[in-house]
């Protein structure tokens, strides 16, 4: 996982959840106060737009923590 992608994901978390703490692969909705189901809906298009990819519905459900996001991004070649 390149450093650029990690930085980008951190910036997206700042945008969407206004979360400025450290992120690791285990960071989950329990650790990020703003990460509720409504905001999850905003997270997906933001990821899609930033990395120019399109997620499937299964992938939307698959995201349980930051690690899952990176796995999906890697799968899409980001």
């Amino acid at each position, binding site marked *: 996982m390149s450093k650029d992608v990690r930085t980008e994901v951190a910036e997206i978390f700042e*945008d969407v959840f206004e979360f400025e703490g450290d992120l690791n692969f285990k960071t989950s909705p329990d650790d990020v106060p703003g990460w509720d189901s409504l905001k999850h*809906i*905003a997270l997906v*298009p933001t990821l899609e737009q930033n990395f120019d990819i399109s997620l*499937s*519905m299964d992938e939307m459900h698959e995201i349980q923590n930051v690690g899952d996001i990176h796995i999906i991004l890697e799968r899409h070649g980001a």
Partner: protein
Amino acid sequence: MLQSIDWAKVDSEKITNMLTSLDEAGKKAPPWLLNALITSGHAVDDAKIERFSLPLKFLNRLNGSDDVDQTSAIDVASRLIDDKDLTRALIKRMKERGLAGEALQLALTNWASSPQLMRPVASTLKHHVEGLPEVKLRVLGFSTTHPFCEDLAPAFAGAGFKTDIVEANFGEVIPELLRPVDGAYDAYILLLDMAGFHAPDWRLETSAGTQMLNDRIDLIVSALASFASQSSLPIFINTVSMAPTPAIGFLDQQLGDGSNASIKLVNERLCDLASQQNQIVLIDSFVAMNTIAPANWSDPKMWFYGRIPYSADATRALADGFARAWRAEKKGPPKVLAIDLDNTMWGGIFGEDGVHGLQCGDDFPGNAFKAMQSEFLRLKKQGMILAILSKNDPVAITAFADHPGIILDEDDFVAHRINWTPKPQNIRELATEINVGLDSFVFLDDSPHEREAMRALAPQVYTPELPDAPARRPGWLRSLSKTWPIRLTKEDAERSSMYQARRKASLMQSSAASFEDYLAGLEQKLTLEEVSQATLPRIAQMHQKTNQFNLTTKRFDESDLKAMMEDEHQMVVLGRANDKFGDHGISICATIAIEGDKAELKPC
């Protein structure tokens, strides 16, 4: 290989060497390379990029050590730029060179197509909106409105407003409309999608399905009418966009339960209501989303996951549409349109080409200028005042009377300044004469220098970028949303609905009439006149161009025709056709041979 290099990491000395060795080898650096170098932060010799766009030239100047002028910065900040890498680089460098406000403006201008651009200016935005007038909005919708509400803040900031948004409970539209709360808000917003109207039941007969839809529309329309009777607040509603995927294929617009037939019905009823209730303001979704491919207006995954009616791109576009409407509501369109003459009002230069050398009329390229003049008349009809602002010989005003293709009259203009005084000074005089502020002006000029001077010396005047190509200008002017009135005066509105009713009635009648009746009803008129110096070029052109209806093989050119005009035994005549749908201009011509008291029409 060169394309894949990250130029930002290459030493500027090496770049200079590379460009110098290209120069010495007598080779020109390719435009894509110069573009990549500038975008990645390097400065190149100005002479190499003379033909590049202003934003790229400006970035080049920012990259160098020269002083940057704020006028260009303001100009660049108001532009929609297709190249996202360029926009990102501009925002970054503008910020670094102390142009934080302009960097923010550029990000806001381009936000709807690329929201990521806001990231580097997020802190500037927070500070900036604190100084803006606040608008308190209550947002309703039949589907999930949350992503839309998030987008309203940057959209309204771009239009010059700070937002305070309260989202109603999910799907609660009717109860909210029936019990409006006046004091707490400045406006209501209803984000509409078809989910509010119609889940088609395919077990029903078509007529029963249509009845159900009508009942649902009745409910919403009466709730809106009730809102309007209880509250004085404006309510902004988007129309429902047409469906790119039809429910009944070829028949979708014809059958009552087709998706697009249903959508048309909803929109018609909304328009009827809005034309009766001034408080109801409609935002045309199709216009708001016109840069997005219809297939991308919604994202089925987001719909089924969270009942989000519009895709992320479409949601931003709609938020932008609502923000523009609010700006029009608060500030209204500008009052005066100040127009340059040469190459703006008409093609060509009065002082060099003379009146009859000016391009304006029915043929290319004059037809583009004529179409633009028609747009000026439209704006006049919509309540704007027209004025002329031209560096020219004052006698240029005579072109309006003397040139047959110019459709505007001198009387269409309330005031004019046709002289050699600088335009920013002239516009101040016009403002005093007409008694309006400078911020009531829109200034149209084909010259980038005149526009730059106006922006620098009279920044309150709205000076948009007029497209270089005359053919693009009429459409461009129509889409200039700052000139859109949110509502016409009551008299105007009544007049237009009266016309509509009359038109509908005449349509009904004409459908029953025969083709002969139709022709008789056209009120066709043919006016004959002798060809003059002014109309000669057009006649010569007709001779050269027309084939299908020219039954002889004779092709007269301008000098042949002139000779015939001067010959006392010959006459050249033309005919102008018009009917109730409009003027079709010069349509026929003929030559006549005169022998004593006998005149013979010669076929041609």
